[in-house]
């Protein structure tokens, strides 16, 4: 458990960033692999960039609210 926590803290140390990025990668992998979702492949790049910005904003909002 200590090793997992150390790796987590070393890699990211923020649950919002970790979960947000992993969910995004999962969605994009589905878009890339599921034939029914291939129509969305054109906007995959936009989805990735938007997700990165949303994740960053979300973690900053949490920090700002914690500063109350």
């Amino acid at each position, binding site marked *: 458990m200590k090793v997992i926590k150390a790796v987590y803290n*070393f*890699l990211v140390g923020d649950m919002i960033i970790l979960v947000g990025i992993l969910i995004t990668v999962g969605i994009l*992998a589905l878009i890339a692999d599921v034939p029914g979702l291939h129509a969305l492949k054109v906007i995959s790049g936009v989805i990735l960039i938007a997700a*990165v910005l949303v*994740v960053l904003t979300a973690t*900053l909002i949490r*920090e700002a609210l914690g500063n109350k």
Partner: protein
Amino acid sequence: MQWAVIAAAFLASAVEFVEAFTIVLVVGVTINWRSSLAGALAAAATLAVIVATLGVALVRYVPIEYLRLVVGIILILFGLKWLKKSILRYSGLKAIHDEEAIFEENRAALRARGEVIAPRFEPFGVLLSYKSVLLEGLEVAFIVITFGSSAANATCNSTCGIGSAAIGAAVAGVLVILAGALIRAPLTKVPENSLKFVVGIMLTSFGTFWGGEGLGINWPLSDAFILILVALYLVATFVLVMILRQRKQQLELARTRQAQPTLQGQAEVSR
């Protein structure tokens, strides 16, 4: 010798070398040169071992998309972590960490005790430098072998083509390292918090680009799209810093208003 292959390999490899060297450079400036160079040398050694043992087969059969995806995701995670801290510091929600003052203070204390400071390895810096050089190095190897073998003709066989491409790549590598050594000194004068902010932007941009490529995204303008990503993230973080600064001012104003009636009450009691 095929000049067209040399020129093409030079240009393509230069882009990869610049990408790898930028990360090595900023790791050196922000963390320390020992960690940065150790990571880069370890990656070069790994590359040498991989290429020597597996050779052309590696470049043909190892799916670089998977490597790009994994490295891309890790870089996004690192990048966002650094960006978050930098934005919070710029907006005033987190105290600016004056590493130089702390370092000088620690050094003075150690000197007072008669101890010698040895620059230590930072695992984060070593790993970051290692990953970047390994990934970009694999791409350079890929460029050299594909350009070289595809350029084979009646006057120059596959080995000759690969040799020409390797010359182009080597010249690109030397030039990029020389240029990097020249801009190293000005970079050290930039405040560390600003550098960390730039690193955060860069890691997030490279991570988005490589991660996207690993997921099968074809970015417009190819590698040049990294510059667009950098610009996009810079604008977004600038907006976020502005919003957070406003929020901090509102919080301070609210705290001042809350404190005023208390102070007035205390003054009336003392009268």
